[in-house]
């Protein structure tokens, strides 16, 4: 029997806000689906479209890039860079046929543990509706 589709989500979280938000979700014992793997980066501006597509190559179904709210970046403007780069990645995802909805950019602060859990839940719901990454692979 074929196992039901379980989305595989990769979340790039910045060290200062989003990762701390994820930490808070954990210490607050908030429940969110276990489909997400978190990669901590120092700043969301570290993420290049190349990283996103390398992940798609391995069969990841959705990618979340999460950083500090605008104006609150620990490195002043890293999150602005992240925004530009995610736009580029979305444009390429659209042309290549993966679809821009599989990439999501969110601003999550260190105090927003609840919001982190909600974003993950919502994103997983969306990807579940969209179906698996056409590339396949076992991520």
């Amino acid at each position, binding site marked *: 029997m074929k196992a039901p589709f379980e989305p595989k989500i990769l979340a790039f979280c910045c060290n200062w806000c989003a990762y701390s938000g994820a930490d808070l979700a954990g210490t607050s014992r908030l429940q969110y689906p276990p489909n997400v793997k978190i990669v901590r980066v120092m700043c969301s501006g570290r993420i*290049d479209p190349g990283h996103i597509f390398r992940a798609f*190559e391995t069969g990841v179904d959705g990618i979340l890039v999460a950083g500090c709210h605008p104006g609150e970046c620990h490195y002043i403007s890293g999150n602005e860079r992240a925004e530009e780069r995610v736009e580029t990645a979305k444009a390429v995802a659209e*042309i290549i046929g993966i679809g821009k909805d599989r990439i999501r950019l969110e601003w999550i602060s260190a105090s927003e543990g609840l919001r982190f859990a909600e974003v993950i839940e919502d994103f997983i719901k969306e990807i579940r509706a969209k179906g698996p990454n056409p590339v396949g692979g076992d991520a």
Partner: protein
Amino acid sequence: MELDEAVRDTNVQMCYSCGKCTLACPLTHDDHIYSPRRIVETILAHGEEGISPAEMWECLTCNACSTYCPSDVRFPAFVREIRGELVKDGSYGECSHAGILHSMMRLMAGGQLEQKRLEWLDDSLETSPRSNVLLFVGCAPYYDAVLGEHGSHTETTKSAIKLLNSIGIKPRLLKDEVCCGHDMLWTGETETFENLERINTERINKSKVKQIIFTCPECYDTFKENYKDLREDIELHHLAQFLGDRIDDLEFKENGKKVTFQDSCRLGRFQGIYEPPRDLLLAVPGLELVEMEDNRKKSVCCGTSCWMNCDQESKRMQVERLEEASTIADMMITACPKCLIHYRCAMDGQSKLDTDVKDLFVMLAESLEP
């Protein structure tokens, strides 16, 4: 490793150490020496242990060395074979752009994705789904998305369609073509290349296409030299060559610019197409064509190949070439999207470079009589 075979196939054993390759190599200059001669000698003497991966990935595969080689050693082809073996051992070159362009190619090689690669087409461009003439679009839409204003390669494709329309040809475009695989082949990812080759061959062979026209010299070279199973009655042309043969049908308006032409490695040294682009430029009334000191087979590489190893050497080569162009002409014209992208990138923040770089076909389409 199949080293003996690579040595035999590419004539490497014929090297007699004259060193012309080292002098011809664009990577060699006052403070840095890249010596194909030494690399070849070391490998011939020590076999596999003599291979230095870093040196293998540094080569630009521009073919300058082989052009001068009196013994017909095909060094770039040798590098390509060795890279294939290095990849099997897990050694890769340094990808630029965090490897996104390589990822794209691997994703396309899977063949499962439904691309939306023709969104840039507009109503002013006439195409026909039943035409016998196929225009191979290649990676143009991706360059636009990834590289922004440095890319703008669909501009070239649009211009190509305009030029073809002006001589009464409505080309066909394939919705589901994939990357030609040039960069995968030259970075040693042979398996990915073979998948891309298979997909393109299947999709083109089952159409009734008689001619394929390329705007990109790399696609042209790859189809011509490395696609083994393409239907035999299909003719392959680079657009410069195709238009060069129909030059009397093209009508251009006056353009008083002074331009110089940058020969790209794949179009020039690999395929020997030197004169058609120049003939086309000279067909534009009033246009003055001046030559840089190193032109035609002596032309200098644009500094990077296969989206790999972009470093200070690349920048040096690009800036030197642009400086040379800017002293003699208003504009540098090239017929290769990668030359265009690399020079445009090098011009960023170099205010002293008083020149412009433009694609040959964009330039020609702008000069068309309305």
